[in-house]
């Protein structure tokens, strides 16, 4: 076909392309999410602990997944064929998921201490009870990874063993003071506490816009242009695009108190990396982390840039440390189309080797 013919054909197809494009965008919120069946194990406030059904559990240790506060954990189980949970179940793991829910104004008083000392602690307790195990594996992603690291960095009860044997931290911010976020909120003139108090909960949509502003052209224009072109060329995969787009746009509110703590700890003072962070008067010392440790970093991560994760290696006390560093983005590395063959097997193998008696 000549170039002119191709151009004319494209113009002729434009109305149909526009219709399909609009339909894809407008019905994104109706896209089904999740591939695996699951049951509620425990709830508290808006927090839910899920256990995924499986008849192939072969590993002794249950695996608890923890995601960030600013997005939904559905990314762990996005859709059939693109679900980390589905993959882990197939590898014989007993998979639990901690879902932070959708905080609203009544949760404005929730702080990082509540998430770590109560919700995460209790979820671990319930996971152990439900599985009948004495220890578990913990895998956190993004802010969820930081919460998991903080949990393992708390002072321990000397009379009982720590329940976490294996700790996997995916694209985790440890020291974010050199990030773009820090340039936005790091100025002391920005009154974090007042904003948190006035807003009570930071709107999820606002967090979403802020995240997208890190790469404004890519997120607000290029994504849609590419979708248009794929639809026009007949290569668009609605079943792949819509679940991810729905997940990206599904942002829970960030409780004001937790948000203010996070901003100050990560972007201003660097308390976590300096060992000054405290939860309910108990100092969080990452040096207390002595679990088998897996750290995954992404080379093109603009949300939690790799340099902000690397200090973890100098802080922890673990003897068994594995670092997987790959090109990829903050989410794409673990949930992208190539993840199933490039990184999930490594993660599953790492857990499998450490999940026996």
């Amino acid at each position: 076909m000549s170039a002119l013919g191709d151009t004319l054909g494209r113009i002729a197809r434009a109305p149909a392309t526009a219709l399909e494009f609009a339909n894809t965008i407008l019905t994104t919120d109706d896209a089904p999410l999740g591939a695996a069946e699951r049951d509620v194990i425990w709830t508290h406030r808006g927090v839910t602990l899920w256990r995924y059904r499986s008849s192939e559990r072969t590993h002794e240790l249950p695996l608890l997944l923890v995601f960030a506060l600013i997005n939904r954990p559905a990314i762990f189980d996005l859709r059939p064929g693109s679900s980390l949970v589905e993959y882990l179940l197939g590898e014989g793991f007993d998979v639990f998921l901690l879902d932070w829910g959708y905080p609203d104004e009544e949760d404005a008083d929730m702080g990082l201490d509540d998430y770590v000392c109560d919700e995460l602690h209790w979820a671990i307790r319930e996971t152990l009870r439900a599985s009948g195990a004495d220890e578990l594996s913990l895998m956190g992603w993004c802010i969820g990874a930081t919460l998991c690291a903080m949990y393992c960095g708390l002072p321990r009860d000397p009379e009982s063993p720590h329940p976490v044997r294996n700790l996997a931290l995916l694209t985790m911010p440890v020291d974010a003071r050199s990030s773009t976020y820090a340039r936005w909120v790091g100025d002391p003139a920005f009154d974090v506490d007042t904003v948190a108090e006035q807003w009570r909960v930071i709107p999820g949509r606002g967090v979403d816009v802020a995240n997208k502003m890190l790469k404004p052209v890519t997120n607000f224009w290029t994504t849609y242009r590419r979708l248009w072109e794929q639809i026009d060329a007949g290569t668009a995969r609605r079943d792949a695009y819509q679940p991810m787009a729905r997940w990206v746009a599904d942002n829970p509110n960030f409780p004001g108190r937790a948000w203010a703590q996070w901003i100050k700890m990560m972007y201003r003072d660097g308390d976590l990396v300096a060992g000054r962070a405290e939860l309910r008067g108990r100092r969080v010392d990452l040096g207390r982390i002595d679990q088998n440790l897996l750290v995954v970093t992404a080379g093109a991560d603009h949300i939690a840039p790799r340099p902000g994760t690397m200090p973890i290696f100098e802080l922890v006390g673990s003897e068994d440390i594995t670092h997987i560093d790959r090109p990829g983005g903050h989410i794409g590395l673990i949930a992208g189309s190539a993840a199933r063959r490039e990184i999930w097997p490594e993660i599953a193998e790492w857990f499998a080797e450490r999940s026996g008696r």
Partner: protein
Amino acid sequence: MPERDSGGQPTAEEQLRALYENAESTAARAFEQAVGTPSFGALLARSAENAAALTRIGSDLADLVLRNLRLAGRADITRLARQLHRTEDKLERVLQEIEQLRDELAAREAPDAAREAPDTAREAPTTARGGPTTARGRRSVTGRATSGNGRAAGGTGTGRSAGGTGTGRTAGGTRTGRAAGGTGTGRAAGGTRGGADSGGSAGGTRAGGGSTGSRTA
């Protein structure tokens, strides 16, 4: 894709497209640099402060109007929800106390059962968790069966969530005390038992409360 001309040179459309993509990527880099500047950060921060203040003013105004109409506003609903949270927090701690006491009771009974039926006891692995001689196998089976009933009664976890909204926060000291054991545990157990009894417990699930009572008595 448009075909190349006979000389292998890019077609006009390809050239136009390459030009556009180059411009787009240049713009993307420029915008990323722009949003990374302190001035943009200051602009964003001030905008966020203003938006928060306006939201607060609008919200307060709406609540004032609704309240004068004798209707419940968002603030009233939030206050009620917080009260529910406090209740749920307390209930969660009560449930944990009950479960812990039930585990301790099971652990205490385990050696007796082992003496009476050594064959059975051997089947249950031991662990330090939850007590130095806890028969973990037996304990976990009991715990699972019991909690399974309880949660099913409320609708798979609803039994807990219905009661369960949260105040663990205010009772933070309780947990520490309990973890430390000793006197703190005893007091907490007493409170737990009372709470469980008065709550009527969602069916037989909380029968462990009865055991708790006999234990603390």
